[in-house]
């Protein structure tokens, strides 16, 4: 069992506030991913949880116990660092057993736990090596092994894969997901990579500028971003954004006029909007189709071929970029004039403050 409750957590370095009041609940066995642009305070938040930084305000509770002032050594959390942070003078075995030795656990017990972790991570043949004799991927495994042997309340990961090459990163990502299943442990994982966040998390926490933008399951955030920031941050290629004006609103629908001219009628509850105000229309690449009868005239830009899919980048007449997903063998010439069909039920609408406008209550029959 491990649950974490964070209330109004704040952290400043000197006069600069980095974490600006964070409230978060983490439940047992969740794989929580903190994601956000670099510098938004993800590592700082993780280090506050670990106890490596002193809080400026707020509280942290672990399993109902206030640990805000407890030293990191007594929190029973394990952390995997971006730089691995292995003890360079110790063998792999010693690295993994260090915490258990400190805790005064019997030798035979320690050996059993280290061997078990080494088996899970396939490190058995490396146990007598020093860290400098290992590759990056192997070091990463040792760092994870060091955490596993302790059976901590929560695993903390700070961008553990960012020093690995792309292929290894994908492989380790799968292994981490498997590890979470196998250990049934609570994990908190920091990354700036939204793909890692989407693929690993059971709960994604999107951070921006020291604040939480949104918390939810990966698909929840993907399909129902609460604001422009989350909408633009999650998903590759990025969601396209078009400026528009509100023309007509009702509980069932909102009519808008795009900057480039066309009008769209969206099934959105527009009662919070004001006619004449600016809004933003967000459309993901998979919700656009090339269609001679489409509402949206565009000029094609470059195309990216991924094999299974092709992404055509386009510009609207008002020079706003859009991306369209088309089948892998589709050909899209540069500089061509086309029309796009918009799947209005899957579009996102954001008010002038960047907040999402909710779906219409009942789908109009």
């Amino acid at each position, binding site marked *: 069992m491990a649950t974490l409750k964070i209330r109004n957590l704040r952290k400043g370095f000197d006069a600069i506030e980095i974490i600006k009041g964070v409230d978060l609940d983490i439940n047992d066995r969740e794989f929580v991913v903190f994601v956000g642009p670099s510098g938004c305070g993800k590592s700082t938040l993780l280090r506050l949880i*670990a*106890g*490596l930084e002193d809080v400026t305000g707020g509280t942290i509770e672990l399993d109902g116990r206030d640990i805000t002032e407890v*030293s*990191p*050594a*007594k*929190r029973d*959390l*394990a*952390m995997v*660092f*971006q*730089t691995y*942070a*292995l*003890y*360079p*003078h110790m063998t792999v075995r010693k690295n993994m057993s*260090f*915490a258990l030795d*400190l*805790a005064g656990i019997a030798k035979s017990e320690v050996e059993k736990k280290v061997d078990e972790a080494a088996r899970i991570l396939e490190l058995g043949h490396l146990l007598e090596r020093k860290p*400098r004799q290992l590759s990056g991927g192997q070091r990463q495994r040792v760092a994870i092994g*060091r955490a596993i042997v*302790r059976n901590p309340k929560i695993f903390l990961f700070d961008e553990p894969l960012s020093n690995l090459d792309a292929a290894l990163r994908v492989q380790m990502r799968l292994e981490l997901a498997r590890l979470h299943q196998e250990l049934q442990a609570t994990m908190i994982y920091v990354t700036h990579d939204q793909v890692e966040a989407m693929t690993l998390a059971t709960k994604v926490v999107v951070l921006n500028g020291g604040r939480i933008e949104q918390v939810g399951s990966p698909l929840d955030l993907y399909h129902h971003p609460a604001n422009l920031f989350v909408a633009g941050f999650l998903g590759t290629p990025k969601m396209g954004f078009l400026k528009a004006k509100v023309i007509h609103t009702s509980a069932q629908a909102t009519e808008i006029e795009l900057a480039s001219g066309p009008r769209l009628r969206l099934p959105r509850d527009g009662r919070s909007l004001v006619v004449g105000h600016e809004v933003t229309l967000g459309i993901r690449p998979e919700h656009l189709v090339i269609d001679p009868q489409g509402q949206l005239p565009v000029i094609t830009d470059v195309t990216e071929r991924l094999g299974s899919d092709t992404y055509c980048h386009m510009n609207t007449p008002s020079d706003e970029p859009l991306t369209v997903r088309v089948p892998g063998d589709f050909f899209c010439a540069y500089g061509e004039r086309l029309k796009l069909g918009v799947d209005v039920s899957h579009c996102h609408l954001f008010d002038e403050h960047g907040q999402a406008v909710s779906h219409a209550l009942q789908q109009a029959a």
Partner: protein
Amino acid sequence: MLTLKQSRRLQSVVLGALAWTVALILFFPIFWMILTSFKTEIDAFATPPQLIFHPTLENYLHIQERSDYFHFAWNSVAIAFGSTIIGMLLAVPAAYSMAFHETRLTKQTLLWMLSTKMLPAVGVLMPIYLMTKSLGLLDTKLSLIIIYTLINLPIMVWMVYTYFKDIPKDILEAARLDGATTVQEIVRVLLPISKGGLASTVLLSLILCWNEAFWSLNLTSSSAAPLTALIASYSSPEGLFWAKLSAVSTLACAPILIFGWISQKQLVRGLSFGAVK
């Protein structure tokens, strides 16, 4: 025209020659001292200086008769090691806190500590002499141990600090999360990782203590006098007895030179084995 490879080789030959020249110039006085210590007083004075002569041990025998070398040598050893041990016991925690728990004043503190080295020692001769005297510590090893520790501490802290600074903070934080107390963190993780750097600091401190002459001459007379005082007792204002002076200097330098030479091998090994890579 030289090929790239040839010019590289030429460059390394020139650099090598330069290094050897500098090394020889630096080594020459020591070489000459050792040579002179085996000459008779008359040969030692000869102009032009002689490279070929009949070596003799009479200077060394004379010194053995006149003074108790091992008494002075023991004092040197006790003072150098005493001061170095105390110095390290103070420098390591100080450098630890400055390297890993930096505050806004850390940089200034370091600079201020080093700036005390700019004060000429003679400037505080009177106060220190009087304090030593009123504490009843004149001509005791303890007084020199304390003073050498204080003199060398800024350099030791600075050196240990730079070695600690090279160690990624993450490693210590990992230890902290693994349940290590601050002492365990230092003793079981930090010190083993930085043992090469710590050994160099110890060696430097030993050498500085061993060679220190100003305070040893002013604060000791006989019972606590180290080898530097022994050398001084052989120098005469008229510049007589060059050979004996050379012999006693050779005797005084030999232990630390040999010690330095032996530990140098260990040092290089320690440095490359402990590397944080």
